[in-house]
């Protein structure tokens, strides 16, 4: 609770800052003009209707596959093949869920737990490291700072294959392949998170505050843990969320470094099931679809719960 309150405070602070910057001066003249001229929205009803129709069509396109997936997850094999694809037939969602969670000795649950472990623990560690690094880069002037920042930005361009293959070889030499560490360790270092953390520090942590804390005799570590981290809850939440989504969605890294299916992520498991239904005689289509729907649920919950923060994060990271 305290966390969300803090975030809101930060959010509104930022909001008013930005607002005052843009609203200053000329917008006063704008409001006067607006009074003499009606709102553009009211001016052209036809145009407005066209725009709304376009948005509605695009939304339908965006939502349709999800709608179909929800319906498909409630059908058994027969319903899937024979009933109308756009509407419910006999309701078999509970059987499907039961089947997903019991198939191959309940391996689906294991994959879910793995995905949560990798995405949760990996992103938490990665966020902490990123916040410290971002703070160091944004608020201290040390030799080599430019090099570190150049490495952060430059690494956005490195293809995953160039990193993942040698990493696989290195990990296999030290016996980390096929263990959770092979997924967790790479998650700790995320240049994009560092970049975001730097941008957030610049926006949220004023130099004066650090000066004041130092004059009061606070040590640098103490300043970081009890002042900076606390003021960075909004930024930190966004960095964590984006890293979590990234890891949850990861495919090439787990495919490369995880061999045994007990360590797989949900994505890998679903990929395997999706290929299986063709290769062997068993048809597991409804299993795959129900599993796919389940794997979206945690994402949806997280996105909705934190949409205020991640939206700014996405755009801020992209634009600055």
């Amino acid at each position: 609770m305290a966390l969300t309150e803090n975030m809101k405070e930060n959010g509104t602070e930022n909001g008013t800052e930005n607002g005052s910057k843009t609203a200053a001066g000329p917008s006063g003249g704008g409001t006067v003009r607006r009074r003499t001229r009606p709102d553009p929205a009211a001016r052209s009803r036809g145009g407005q209707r066209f725009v709304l129709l376009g948005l509605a069509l695009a939304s339908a396109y965006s939502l349709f596959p999800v709608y179909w997936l929800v319906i498909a997850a409630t059908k058994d094999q027969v319903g899937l093949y024979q009933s109308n694809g756009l509407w419910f037939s006999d309701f078999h969602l509970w059987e499907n869920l039961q089947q997903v969670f019991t198939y191959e000795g309940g391996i689906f649950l294991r994959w879910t737990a793995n995905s949560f472990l990798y995405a949760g623990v990996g992103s938490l560690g990665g966020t902490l490291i990123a916040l410290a690094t971002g703070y160091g880069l944004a608020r201290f002037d040390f030799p080599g700072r430019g090099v570190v920042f150049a490495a952060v930005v430059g690494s956005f361009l490195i293809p995953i294959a160039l990193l993942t293959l040698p990493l696989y070889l290195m990990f296999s030499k030290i016996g980390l392949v096929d263990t959770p560490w092979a997924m967790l360790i790479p998650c700790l270092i995320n240049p994009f998170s560092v970049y975001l953390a730097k941008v957030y520090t610049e926006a949220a942590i004023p130099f004066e505050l650090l000066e004041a804390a130092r004059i009061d005799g606070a040590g640098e570590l103490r300043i970081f843990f009890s002042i900076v981290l606390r003021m960075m809850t909004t930024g930190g939440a966004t960095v964590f969320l984006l890293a979590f989504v990234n890891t949850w969605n990861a495919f090439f890294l787990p495919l490369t470094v995880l061999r045994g299916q007990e360590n797989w992520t949900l994505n890998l498991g679903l990929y395997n099931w999706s290929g299986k239904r063709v290769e062997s005689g068993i048809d597991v289509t409804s299993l795959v679809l129900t599993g796919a729907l389940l794997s979206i649920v945690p994402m949806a919950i997280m996105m909705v719960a934190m949409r205020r923060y991640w939206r700014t994060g996405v755009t801020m990271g992209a634009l600055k």
Partner: protein
Amino acid sequence: MIRSLRWKGAAFTVPFQLGFVFLYLLPIGYAVHQSLFLQKQSGLGLGGATTEFVGLENYQQGLTDSAFMTSILRVVLFACVQIPFMLIISLILALFLDAVTAKAAGRFRIMLLVPYMIPGVVAAIVWINLYSPVVGPLTPLGELFGLDWNFFAPSMVWPAIGNLLTWHGIGYNMVIIYSALQGVPRELFEAARLDGASELRIALSIKVPFVRGALVLTALLSVIQMLQIFNEPALFRNISPETVSDSFTPIMIIYNQAFNAANYHYAAALSVLLALILGLASFLFYRLTSREAD
């Protein structure tokens, strides 16, 4: 700044620097090193393999490997079609959002962002099933209009993947362009309206030029992503291995060389080549788009 304070500040970045060396620099160095060797069978293949230094031989082979070059050409051609298509739709939707009330914009934005929340693998699974002639609703829908389409046919695979990528990417790109639009000074519109400009004219002559930076950025990100495309073709390959070959995209070739052919040295050389091509493509793209601005 006091000297001791500088070093304390630098200390905050040490964990990242160590990790970066271990997880980025070392692997890249290792890949480059590996790419200079080749495993050769001694004798008649009975005497075990030896690793020999071959210099740039792997690179030479990669540059003349027609499968690798074809796969790069394939994704580049595809990128030239799909990325402009996706970005134009994203731009139009961002302009549309900008033209409706804040409340409506908020609602539509959430709906349009739903695909972005869905993991790429899951998105591919869902669309593959939508395309499927047995379970998907699209085949009967086509029949309704007299269309006999097979999404897994060779001519339809790229449009099918293109639709999937477009569906997945519109929302994200739209949000970036939309938030750039929010930065356009509103007085400009008022002034243009006073001069009698239509809303369409304002959109084309004021708003679009203003968000050029965001468009360039979203395009660059999409190009980088596209050259590395792997998940979607890999899943399509599950369904129709005869249309989507195992050398469909560059990363698929690299993966196969490493894990199916156990030819790490060649795979390493190909991934270094891909990195160079990616860097070159980004540089060229950046130069081209920034020159236009002058």
